[in-house]
């Protein structure tokens, strides 16, 4: 049994649905399993499973120009792998992106291979001037996702929400 929180994944998913998200791109990682299954089981959601995360920037850009709201689910290493697309695609062309990034490698991380990404994720978001908030408590998830989405659309720029261990993990 995975200790990834089904209940809090549901809170995140419902907030995305409430924001009109109809397309999600995703590359699986442990913390995202429930979110991806929820998208898969939802007939109103188009789930696009990627080979590499930067494809998601292109797909979200196309969906946005075509009038559909989308979100991207990825690990912070997927964010690292997408930076050129974010800068030379979404930022160059003023595309709002709603990026939900699992914040691996923070306090409590047990997987040795996940311990480098956590230390650079927030610094890179700052450097790229991508506004972000932490999602670490189910009480504020819906409000922060909605506000992030509002800023993404008013600014025509990417925003990020970091899915934290305290939200995503049940132990």
């Amino acid at each position, binding site marked *: 049994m995975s200790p990834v929180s089904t209940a809090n994944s549901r809170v995140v998913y419902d907030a995305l649905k409430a924001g009109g998200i109809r397309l999600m791109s995703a590359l699986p990682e442990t913390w995202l399993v429930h979110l991806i299954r929820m998208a898969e089981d939802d007939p109103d959601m188009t789930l696009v*499973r990627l080979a590499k995360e930067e494809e998601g920037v*292109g*797909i979200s850009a196309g969906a946005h*120009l*075509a009038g559909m709201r*989308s979100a991207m689910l990825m690990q912070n290493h997927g964010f690292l792998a997408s930076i050129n697309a974010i800068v030379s695609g979404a930022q160059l*062309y003023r595309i709002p992106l709603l990026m939900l990034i699992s914040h691996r490698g923070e306090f409590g991380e047990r997987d040795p291979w996940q311990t480098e990404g956590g230390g650079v994720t927030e610094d890179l978001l700052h450097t790229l001037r991508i506004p972000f908030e932490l999602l670490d408590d189910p009480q504020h998830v819906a409000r922060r996702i909605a506000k992030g989405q509002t800023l993404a659309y008013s600014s025509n720029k990417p925003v990020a929400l970091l899915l934290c261990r305290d939200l995503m993990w049940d132990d």
Partner: protein
Amino acid sequence: MLRLDALKSIYSRLENRAVVTIMGAVAAELQSIGHRSNFFYLQHAMGLASSMGLGIALARPDSQVVVFDGDGSVLMNLGGLTTLARYRPRNLVHVIFDNESLLSVGGFPTATSTGSDLAAIAAAAGIPRTATVRTLDAFTTAFDEALAAGDLTTMVAKVEAVGPSGYVTDLSLLENRFQFQRYLASTREAKVDK
């Protein structure tokens, strides 16, 4: 075959279709024939033109999407071919102009110059319709067949490694982006009105 001639030969078919191109010569040549509000030129984010086309095609299954890609760009996003095949948008025609080089940045040869076969890679990725064409007649025939087929097609057009003298045009990137978005919105509203 010259890419410019290929583009001219099918230019009339691009009306009322959402067209996404890669940067450099393809964008400049299409603009030299005549810019339209339904053309979007992805001037950076190399490799992602086909991903953008997929996003448009999935968001708007009622619209026809054409992507003009290049060998260097596709080689940067080979995984994207597997994603295209997986979702198989039947309203997307993916054209790869293969000049076997990175023309816009000095003309250095790509791996297609030493035998990598992008149509075979696309077919192996699961794209249902693929072709490689080498003449203008074969190109126009294959393009028209792809439009008529109603299924995802990736067609590779072998073209000469020549292009325009410059790539910067007087169309600003953001002007193009917002114009294209408004074009797509107008076609959606037209459908709703009916």
